[in-house]
């Protein structure tokens, strides 16, 4: 992957996150605009911390999900890993052994990845998903499904890979 693509991918990810957190609406104006149409997204994303982790709040508001990819930014058509931790929303302590499933899809193309990522527990409160691959350029949704008891809740972020 060229360094120009890498820089653009990172820039668009950050644009996406900023736009999502701003929550304004410009439905259908541009394929480049990653903001959600209509009401805007309820997801909240902050800039990465010093260790490169980004933060999301799950769609129903129960979970704080922090994540980063390796390598970063995500390369086109090359495998990458996602590291993820989960805490209850509004709390700092990451929870051990809570079931998390990391996956990705292209909603505009109505398909997912062409491989199933392998989920590895690195430490009690840190999960690594290996083998993700964005096999084509465009807008991808990276999703984190967190399960507690009967309820699975999703956090997601949109990423454009040029």
């Amino acid at each position, binding site marked *: 992957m060229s360094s120009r693509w890498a820089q653009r991918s990172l820039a668009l990810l950050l644009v996406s996150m900023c736009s999502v957190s701003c929550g304004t*609406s410009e*439905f*259908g104006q541009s394929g480049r605009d990653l903001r*959600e*149409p*209509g*009401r*805007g*997204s*309820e997801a909240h994303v902050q800039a990465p911390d010093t260790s490169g982790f980004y933060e999301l709040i799950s*769609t*129903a508001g129960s979970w704080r999900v922090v994540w980063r990819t390796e390598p970063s930014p995500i390369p086109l058509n090359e495998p990458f890993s996602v590291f993820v931790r989960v805490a209850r929303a509004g709390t700092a302590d990451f929870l051990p052994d809570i079931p998390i*499933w990391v*996956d990705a899809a292209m*909603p*505009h*193309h*109505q398909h997912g990845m062409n491989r199933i990522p392998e989920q590895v527990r690195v430490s009690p409160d840190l999960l690594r998903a290996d083998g993700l691959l964005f096999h084509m350029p465009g*807008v991808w*949704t990276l*999703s984190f*499904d967190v399960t507690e*008891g*009967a*309820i*699975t*809740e*999703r956090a*997601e972020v*949109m990423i454009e890979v040029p």
Partner: protein
Amino acid sequence: MMLATVVLLCSLAPTAIQADSLFPVEVGDRFGLFEETLAGLPSPRAAAFDSEGRLFLAGENRVDVFDQELQRTASWGKRGDGSGQLRRPGGLAVAANGAVYVSDSGNHRIQIFQPDGRWGGRFASRGSGEGQLLEPAGLAVSDERLFVADSGNNRIQVFDRLGQPVTRWSADGLMRPSGIARDEEGRLFVADTGNQRIVVLNPDGAVLVALGERGPFPGLFSGPQGVAVSRGRLYVADTDNHRIQVFDIQSVLRGETEPLYEWGKHALRPREGEGRLHYPDAVAVSPGGGQIVICESFVDRTQVFGPAVESVEVYAADPTVRTGISSHYGPAISALGPLLLLMEPESQTLQVMDVRGMAPLVITRFGGWGAAAGKFRDLAGVAFSPTGRLYGSDGDTARIQSWRLDYEPTGEAAFFPGASHLVQAVDLSVLMESEELPLGTSPHVRPGALVVDKDGLIYVIDEVSASVLVFDARWRLQRRIGAGRLKRPLDLALLETFGEDSASGTSLPSGEHVAVADGDLGQVLLFGTRDEPEAILGAGLLVEPAGVTTDPEGRVLVTDRATHRVHVFDTRGAELTSWGKEGLGAGEFFKPRGIAMLPNGKILVLDHGNHRGQVFTESGEFVSAFGRRLYVNETRAAPGAEEVTEKEDS
């Protein structure tokens, strides 16, 4: 018969030759030539031959008997729950002594008939315990045992020939097993419908091999329901792929998945038969091996095929068959303002349509088949909440999932595939395990149709307990409605009433009521805060109510799948109007299901069997239709039709 077969060979031989190079068996060693249609028995779901070649078909509420020339000679049973009466029989087996075992699915029991039709006994009752059954389906019989596909309990239950329970097998997690067949070695072949595979068991119930997974290609299945074995071959009614697949049993036991051959294609013309198949759900091979009988309950017919004389057309090789063309709308639908939420069962997807323009426009489509969050294995119900959240229920995974829809129907409507965002997936079976349930109540649930009220309460039909579960927004069980009263609830709707009002026909107490359409009772029951229904609508008029909604005036609108009609009632039970009959024209239906009110006061009926939706005025005058072109075309000549609209990919 021989002469008739020869005549048919000469006159009806198909002309298409497409599959010679695909399959390892010669044309003469295959079935595939259409011989005749056995009509007159609605909803045939099971077939079996006796050793003398007599054919037994079970459908609707009776068993029909045919001689070796396929002439109907007798008919047993009628609708009811008494001895010898039947409700939606779904399985048949004939013992060596001629006794006919019938899976009386709607009554959750087995009935036995003598070869001459005299009633011979019954056993089992509704439930999940030992010796109890829930929607039993296929049957197989040996000299000493009766094997029952206990579909609603996800197991095979074994009885002795007197009806005493012997054992139960779950066979590595069966899901809605339907067909079952037994070969001469005592092996059992089970159509594991929900798991999209065929499971082979040894005589002790151990799994020998599992064949297939979900898909359209040879060796894959989509909702397989029927199985038969004959002369070393396994015949599978691959229901949602609209075909029959044939396997060599020894190859299957070796783990090979390639079929010997297949035949069948989805009908292109409405209700087209004569070789075309539409949801085949049972198969039986004659004792001599010369004929195969295929039941298609969806289109109320049974087709008979003989040996092929030329290569048959292959489903996958037909370029006219593409994704979506064979799919249906429904059964469920929900409306919120100008937005419709529909389901497409073949693809297990939800669709949101914007109805502001001349044509309903699909603005987003999501879901798909699978077990992961956001996917469905048996999409059963859909609902908008009053706040715009989307809900979908899944019978097989016992989940209710919800989405946020990021779409405001204010600007120009457009397709936006990324407009839905999964919020939650809630596993009701896990939830119910933590509930304090009444003694004898199973935590096993199977969610069906659902609605959400203005306070966020979620009303969902549980097909296992035949009741309506009510959860609050935090998924705490608040109430169970209709337990012990309902038999087969198919749909539900909410109704707000404001006390006695002679003008609107309301006689119910003030407050929120839930209207439940029960397909087996043939009634719509209105429940309030009491356990007993406040009112019963349609008794003696409705046969199989399958969809229900209410309008702002407090009227209750019901679709009847069996009579192909729409009925409108007030809450006292008086019928205000009705319309419809079986057919393709404007205002005609084929097995209508969901019904919804549009914001302009019009009524949308999901004409499920006709692959379309139809819109009517409140008095039942046809306005427009949308859906598959071949089906919508028939409404164009309707006098007074304002317009006919089509889906974007028709």
